[in-house]
């Protein structure tokens, strides 16, 4: 596995992919190795190193490695690859692109955040303005708008404007101080639920939320109570992305010979994305809200509820 610059302990997508590899090691007994990239300059030599080691499957992690994976797959047509957060059109027959419709569970997260907000404002921010980040924020905003429609409420979304596709970004996935600054700014503007979509940067936001005392937050990618247990008491829920399960599935396929290139899309329907358990908030979330979330989930799966923020844009609070 070649990670992006966050490294395997980013408590986010790199960590999830590595967890998938570790699970595969445990369940299937395969040998696993990883290389961390410290900058984009490392992508190519890192992939080459594993090609030279004749690995059964090379997992590259992250949207930013999309181009290099395509290039290496073309020069090494017999080498199998899987890439997290990227899909190819047309599909490449030795690359399995793993993508996730995180706007679906982001929608649920947004709805829940709006329902739990006492101040009438919720905040989000991203690491870098790339599709894999903003898809969460789009879903989150759409969920809040939908809540406004259902409850004739006026909950505001800070940090992301789906119409202009712009908002607050820390600029990387590592600087916790920036996460703290952005979360503080959003809380000063009235937000009391913060949803960072920025890997380790979110830990800075968690520190800010903890210091604030009244605000809460939602974690991203993995169950925050597992990946960042020190802040578990702050997390209403986590907006999950089933990277670990799909990476393990890809490794299993490569090991038993059933590997096929193409694209896998994780959805609420196939369990590839979803909300984590509510943990400490289980008793604090009104049961009516929980029931609504279940109904909405079925609505999204069935296609009757759109997760596109444009569909509900008119319910955005001014």
């Amino acid at each position, binding site marked *: 596995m070649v990670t992006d610059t966050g490294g395997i302990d980013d408590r986010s997508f790199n960590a999830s992919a590595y967890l998938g590899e570790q699970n595969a090691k445990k369940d299937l007994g395969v040998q696993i190795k990883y*290389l961390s990239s410290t900058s*984009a*300059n490392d992508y*190519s030599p*890192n992939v080459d*190193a594993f090609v030279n080691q004749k690995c059964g499957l090379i997992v590259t992690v992250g949207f930013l490695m999309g181009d290099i994976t395509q290039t290496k797959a073309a020069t090494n047509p017999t080498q199998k690859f899987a890439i997290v957060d990227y899909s190819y059109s047309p599909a490449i027959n030795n690359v399995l692109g793993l993508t996730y419709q995180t706007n679906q569970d982001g929608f649920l997260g947004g709805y829940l955040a709006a329902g739990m907000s006492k101040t009438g404002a919720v905040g989000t921010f991203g690491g870098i303005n790339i599709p894999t980040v903003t898809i969460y924020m789009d879903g989150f905003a759409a969920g809040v708008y939908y809540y406004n429609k259902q409850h004739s409420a006026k909950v505001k979304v800070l940090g992301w404007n789906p119409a202009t596709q712009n908002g607050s970004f820390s*600029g990387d996935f590592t600087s916790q101080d920036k996460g703290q600054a952005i979360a503080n700014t959003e809380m000063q503007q009235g937000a009391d639920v913060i949803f960072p979509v920025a890997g380790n940067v979110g830990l800075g936001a968690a520190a800010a939320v903890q210091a604030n005392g009244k605000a809460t937050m939602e974690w991203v990618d993995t169950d925050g109570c597992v990946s960042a247990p020190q802040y578990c008491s702050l997390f209403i829920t986590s907006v999950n992305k089933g990277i670990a399960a799909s990476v393990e599935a890809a490794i299993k396929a490569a090991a038993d010979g059933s590997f096929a290139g193409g694209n896998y899309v994780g959805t609420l329907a196939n369990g590839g994305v979803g909300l984590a358990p509510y943990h400490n908030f289980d008793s604090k979330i009104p049961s009516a809200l929980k029931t609504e979330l279940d109904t909405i989930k079925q609505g999204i799966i069935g296609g009757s509820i759109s997760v596109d923020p444009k569909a509900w844009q008119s319910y955005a609070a001014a």
Partner: protein
Amino acid sequence: MSENPDQKPGRNRAAAARDVIQSVIAPQSSIWSSVLVVVLAFVTALVVSAVFIVVSDPNVIQAPDLLTALNVAWQDVSGAYGGLLTGALGDPSTIIAKLSSGDAKVAASAFYPLSETVVAAAPLVFTGLAVALGFRAGLFNIGGEGQVIAGGLAAGFVGFSVHGLTGFVELPLALLAGFLVGMLWGFIPGLLKARTGAHEVITTIMLNYVAIYLTYYFLNTTLFQRPGRTDPISKVVDSAAMLPSLAALNLRVHAGALLAVAVAVAVYFLLWRTTLGFEFRAVGANPDASRAAGIGVGRVIVVAMSLSGGLAGLAGANIILGVQYSVTPGFSSGLGFDGITVALLGRGNPVGVVAAALLFGGLRAGAVQMQAATSTPVDIVQVIEALVIMFVAAPALIRAIFRLRAVRGIGAPTVSPGWGG
């Protein structure tokens, strides 16, 4: 030396000038003792790092008896350093097998490790030269990072926005752009120092941040950003602007390495065979005496900082036009700071800089292989590098450890005189 102090204006200051001459052309400390200290520092660093490798392996600590622990420790260290070596140079038996395969591509793949070493070393040569040139003139250019970024941004911009030229025109044009904008990034602190006395360490560090955030800004403008992308990534440079490489043989090595050697020769010539270079060294040795001897110290500072920035800018151009082909944030990946290390290790001498860059390039290339093969974290290489520098910077320590006789003048080369210097 072509310079004769008595031909300078102000004969009454000849005595002071003669001091400068003496300090500049005084016989260099024996090259060999210098090399010996570096080699011994490297060996010491490897030994100390081996301790880190051993203690970081739980299997050693949990071993049932001493013999097992020693055995595991030996396997850890030999595996890690073996991986480092084969990753940097290649494994002899594999090389022979591949060379005798008869297939051109397979034969070429025998040189993959060497190619990676050279690819990693080339930009370090430029930034190392940049810092070394500054050292010689008594300037501590800590802004290599910003100059690399500025140069790479400019080279990339020419590479993807100028079209319809042949490689013979566009590539030099892009390289020149990188050099000139890098120069600008060095010129500003140079001018500030010459005119206002602002210390170059402060101003160059600040310009690093300017370059980093300008990159984010530019990469989000339509002028730079790749169509269809929302993240900060530039368009791809034209093939006419790319440094020719052996990509056809699946090797990443490119013409930037030749350019690096040529530039190292040029810097050597500049420093030791030209009047300007003499002035650099004179100012570096003693600015007051140089001024007394009629050298325009302010002018020398501005020119030296500009050239230093230009060299670092070439490192950026080298990365963008030779390896990455498009600009992304963080493409400089610490090259400017690594240049300081390379310049120190190379004793501020262009030949030494090339050697030091190759050594560090080998460590970088080898580290990937080391982790891929033995799961020793690549970070251990950073530890080795840091320790090498620490020991090189403290030659007395090395001499004490290895009981070498003290040699006069073996200390650091003419390094910046420090704060307020």
